[in-house]
């Protein structure tokens, strides 16, 4: 960057006191990085007194974020006092709030997580690997060679939906319903995904009845390795109140939907932007398992998680007051040069590549991280078998969101071996 562009760059000219990194446009136009870089340098724990989401703290350094993550006694995830995103959780009229343990504190969080986690335990996942691999292969085989296609819609969404359908043993022909319900569960009327709270409520009830039906069927069949069957038969979950079951199920669907989808797209873009890394990968597909955590760091599919201070505290020398909103910007921590060597480079064989913030840490650390990694590994193995290159042939379009860091469109052309 020349000094000339530095001078004109609003990230370096806006007074710190007015620096607000929550504007979704900064993420959509991909300029947010220089704002975070400045905060890490000049004001790593930054107070923004006024924003569309009210006053909030930004925590931007890796180790400060870690400190917030492990201190759940002070920094709460509880939905009723705001929840886990910079935007307070909606408790609006007719909102139909699903209870999810990602937005609960211990001990309630612990009991629920313990009940559900065996469903995504690695020993259970190995049983699903062959099916996921076969279905991924079918999706990739159906793509045209040498023609421009949208990687997001044709591949990332399709593969993620396929995996979810496999995890739940969801009726195959109706699998796009899962994607829809996931979108609806996280939607507010402002997003345009639903037109009113009423519509959201109706669609989620429809989802509820659909799953109730699946649950009733599975409970009467012998146990299988899909998540619904496991939950219907496990002593820890089989007597779970229905709304709780639904909340947990939605959490699994939502948690694994956009995040994995955008990791699939993000990986393709990163490799295209770093052709030497792409060549390294083609020369040695054995690097895939090392590359997956680097893709997840690079993309950081969730830009942040938020906490609410239950008591006065200190982070990085700043006084946080009881009730304050504290935003942990994973996207920034994942570029912190004090912890990550050459953080602005995408290096597929990075030593220590698992040391990133994208899955969070502490008791809320992503429960589906193994599912996500497994899915990405399989997908890349199958892509490399089939294509000499997935070439990005146009500008990516990014999601307008300060929470989900992803793509709405990524034009590519496939090259056969």
């Amino acid at each position, binding site marked *: 960057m020349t000094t000339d562009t530095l001078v004109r760059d609003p990230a370096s000219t806006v007074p710190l006191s007015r620096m607000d990194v929550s504007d979704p446009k900064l993420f959509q136009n991909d300029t947010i990085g220089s704002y975070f870089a400045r905060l890490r340098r000049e004001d790593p724990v930054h107070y923004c007194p006024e924003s569309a989401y009210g006053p909030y703290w930004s925590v931007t350094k890796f180790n400060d974020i870690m400190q917030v993550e*492990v201190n759940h006694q002070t920094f709460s995830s509880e939905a009723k006092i705001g929840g886990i995103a910079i935007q307070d959780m909606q408790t609006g009229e007719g909102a139909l709030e699903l209870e999810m343990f990602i937005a609960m504190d211990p001990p309630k969080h612990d009991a629920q*997580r*313990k009940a559900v986690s*065996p469903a995504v335990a*690695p020993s259970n996942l190995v049983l699903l690997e062959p099916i996921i691999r076969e279905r991924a292969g079918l999706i990739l085989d159906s793509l045209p060679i040498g023609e421009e296609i949208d990687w997001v819609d044709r591949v990332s969404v399709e593969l993620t939906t396929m995996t979810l359908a496999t995890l739940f043993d969801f009726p195959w022909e109706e699998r796009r319903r899962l994607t829809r319900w996931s979108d609806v569960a996280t939607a507010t009327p402002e997003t345009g995904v639903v037109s009113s709270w009423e519509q959201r409520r109706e669609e989620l009830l429809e989802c509820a009845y659909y799953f109730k039906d699946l649950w009733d069927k599975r409970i009467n069949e012998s146990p299988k390795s899909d998540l619904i069957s496991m939950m219907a038969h496990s002593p820890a979950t089989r007597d779970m109140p229905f709304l709780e079951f639904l909340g947990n199920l939605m959490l699994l669907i939502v948690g694994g939907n956009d995040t994995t989808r955008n990791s699939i797209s993000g990986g393709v873009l990163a490799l295209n932007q770093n052709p030497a890394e792409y060549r390294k990968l083609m020369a040695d597909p054995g690097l895939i398992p090392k590359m997956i955590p680097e893709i997840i760091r690079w993309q950081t599919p969730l830009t942040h998680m938020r906490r609410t201070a239950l008591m006065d505290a200190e982070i990085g020398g700043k006084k946080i007051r009881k009730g304050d909103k504290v935003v942990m910007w994973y996207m920034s921590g994942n570029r912190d040069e004090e912890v990550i060597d050459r953080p602005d480079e995408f290096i597929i064989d990075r030593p220590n590549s*698992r040391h990133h913030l994208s899955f969070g840490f502490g008791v809320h*650390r992503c429960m589906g991280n193994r599912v996500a990694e497994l899915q990405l590994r399989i997908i890349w193995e199958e892509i490399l078998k089939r294509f000499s290159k997935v070439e990005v042939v146009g500008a990516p379009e990014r999601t307008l969101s300060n929470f989900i860091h992803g793509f709405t469109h990524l034009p590519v052309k496939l090259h056969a071996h």
Partner: protein
Amino acid sequence: MPTVIFIEPDGAEYPIAVKNGTTARDAAVNNGVPGIDGDCGGECACATCHVHVDAAWIARTGMAEPGGMEANLLQFAEGSTENSRLACQITMTDDLDGLTLRIPDGQH
């Protein structure tokens, strides 16, 4: 230089001699023991360094303190038992020379 011995689910053994004060997690990660990822860097924040302490050794390492962060994380780890510990919370000393830690089945 105390030695810590990691035993994989398939029986493979990794004896590693380390300096006093090294954590069992660092011993494993620095020597590429499969199944110990240590994602958080040893901060007691991820549970990817979960091990089962051999019954003969648990009195000397002690158990995870009830209600502490280590116990909080262990309750969600696959195959967690009362002999479960996080390897990053075990610091090697001459007293622990020969410590035997088993990698839980399916951890990877």
